[in-house]
């Protein structure tokens, strides 16, 4: 009896798996990943949600008219923390003239990111090309290239602060000891100083990642190009760049997102509260220190959304493959093929039908 019921019920109890590639390892995977995901839920997930909630509140300041006591706690203000840019702008004068402090910080962040990443990429690729052609001394170059990467950003900030001091070596090297540039004086030169310090620290890192990409290009491809009579420039633009692109795009994406949240360099080199170099991170941080939590949260959310947008554009437009899992890639490719196939079949059957109808109409 038991056997027959089991036989009868067996086919119905087998659920269709959502993912054909999952062969029952889901439970084990969930168990192994649970600690990691739980920790990330607590240290990243919950704070993000709390930040978003916080952005809609504002600490009560001032005196309660009824009791005469200083008000504590916070009240819901809706989007006011965001709309105050337009309604009650706090005007500051950076290097772009007077404007709202948030907009100023936003422009600074964008400027630093664009300029730094472009320069770093060019320098980094150049370094990778040099290293790829190296005859000897690779060990020395690799060791020295790791030095800027290993130095803590804040240490590099104070280091460049000394170099760019009014009486410092930068002015001496440039021959400006008589009419020195005030690099640290909260002006355009401060921006340049920040950019130089950031490029110095991270261009070698891009070079390192690009070199790894270069080394995956087989020598045969270059030989074939040589046989076909390609010039050096053609070889670079038609072979090297396209083949190194996946590695490069990922490296540039990481660097871009890192520069968008720049904090240590302006803080350590020029100092907090200097509008010419104030980034969104620094601004939000200062607001937090002033216990204006609502505003700080709102500005950090602006930065967060900005980063999400940039990452999204990188993945969509440049096809940055950040995940890089071969199996997932295969699954997605298979899904795409199946979808194509279904569409083609549907089209084919549709065209057959139209043929028949048109045929019958003609007769």
């Amino acid at each position, binding site marked *: 009896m038991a056997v027959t019921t089991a036989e009868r019920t067996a086919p119905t109890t087998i659920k269709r798996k959502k*993912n054909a590639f*999952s062969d029952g390892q*889901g439970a084990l*995977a969930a168990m*192994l*990943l649970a600690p*990691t*995901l739980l*920790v*990330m839920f607590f*240290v*990243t997930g919950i*704070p*993000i949600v*709390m*930040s978003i909630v*916080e952005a809609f509140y504002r600490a009560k300041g001032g005196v309660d008219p009824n009791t005469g006591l200083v008000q504590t706690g916070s009240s819901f203000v809706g989007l006011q923390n965001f709309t105050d840019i337009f309604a009650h702008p706090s005007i500051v004068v950076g290097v772009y003239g007077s404007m709202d402090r948030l907009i100023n910080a936003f422009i600074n962040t964008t400027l630093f990111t664009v300029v730094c990443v472009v320069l770093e990429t060019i320098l980094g690729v150049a370094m990778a090309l*040099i290293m790829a*052609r*190296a*005859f000897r*001394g690779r060990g*020395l*170059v*690799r*060791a*020295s290239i*790791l030095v800027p990467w*290993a*130095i*803590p*950003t*804040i*240490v*590099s900030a*104070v*280091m*460049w602060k000394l170099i760019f001091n009014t009486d410092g070596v930068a002015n001496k090297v440039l021959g400006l000891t008589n009419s020195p540039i005030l690099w640290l004086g909260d002006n355009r030169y401060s921006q340049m100083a920040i950019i130089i310090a950031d490029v*110095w620290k991270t261009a*070698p*890192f891009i070079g*390192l*990642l690009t070199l*790894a990409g270069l080394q995956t290009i087989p020598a045969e491809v270059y030989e074939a190009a040589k046989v076909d009579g390609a010039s050096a420039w053609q070889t670079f633009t038609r072979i090297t760049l396209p083949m190194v692109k996946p590695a490069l795009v990922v490296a540039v994406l*990481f660097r871009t*997102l890192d520069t968008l949240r720049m*904090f*240590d360099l302006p803080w*350590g080199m020029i100092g907090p509260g200097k509008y010419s170099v104030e980034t969104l*991170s620094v601004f*939000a941080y200062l607001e*937090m220190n002033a216990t204006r939590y609502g505003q700080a949260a709102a500005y950090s959310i602006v*930065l*967060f959304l900005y*980063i999400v947008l940039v*990452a999204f554009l990188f993945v969509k437009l440049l096809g940055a493959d950040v*995940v*890089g*899992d*071969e199996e997932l890639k295969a699954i997605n490719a298979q899904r795409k093929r199946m979808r194509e196939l279904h569409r083609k079949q549907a089209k084919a059957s549709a065209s057959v039908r139209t043929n028949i109808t048109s045929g019958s109409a003609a007769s």
Partner: protein
Amino acid sequence: MTQVATPVIAHLTPEELAALNKPRHDGKWWLGKIASTLGMAFIVIYCLVPFYWMIISSLRLPTMGLSNDYWPNPISFENYPGVFSAQNNFLRAIINSVVVSVTTTVLTLVFGIIGAYALARLRFAAKGFVLAIIIGASMFPGITLLLPLFKLFTGAYDWMPLHWLNQYQAAIIPSLSFGLPLCVWNLTAFFRQLPVELEQAAMVDGCTPGEAFRKVILPLAAPGVFTTAILTFIAVWNEFMISLTFLQARDMKTATVALSQFTGTLGFNTPFGSIMAAGVITTIPLLILVLFFQRRIVAGLTAGGVK
């Protein structure tokens, strides 16, 4: 084969042999060689000159902090004892840095190893989603996470009055937010490189999947785990914003925060000599790690970013 080859060589004079063996170097070859050497020299100078400036600035007399001589004259180590003076309290700061970095690294490894193994080896429906969450988490702006945690740890929330400011966990827990994704990401890349046949062979020999992981994969992945530990350690050691926020008391500052807040004995003068010395001291442990394990570190950095 040798019998065929010997007579041919026998016909050649030693001079002709030498000429044949010598690689032909035309002008283009030399040009390439010179350009490449110059390029390498450029990279080395580019990377090391600012660091050189930091080192020699730390070797000047404390009174000559802003000297611009390319070589300190006279060479003085006075700045180094100054770093550890009672006023700067830097030894305590280094101990704090070690406590925070080591604890965070160990915690991320404990959590990360099994998670990374699952991501590298197992097949499950939500894998793409989990990978996206982890890489996404490593890209979050720190300030977004910092704000609610700051409120929480200062006891600003009535429903959870924690007063954790100036306690190690206040820096360690937020550090997990970037340490853990970094660790899982790198380990996943390392586990993927190990052939899956290893576990299959172990399981054929009678191991359970757990045993196969413990007895076969973990020992083989040890170099990868070690590299990941170094990378995570360096990332946490170099961290500034979290420590600046949560460890503000004099005895709790980490090395990075302490050296950015050094004050001179004379008030307004920035004590560049001792700051540079502190910078060198903070960087030296990392540089030793980097020089000893440069191959591994490069492999780890690129495995995380490049497939």
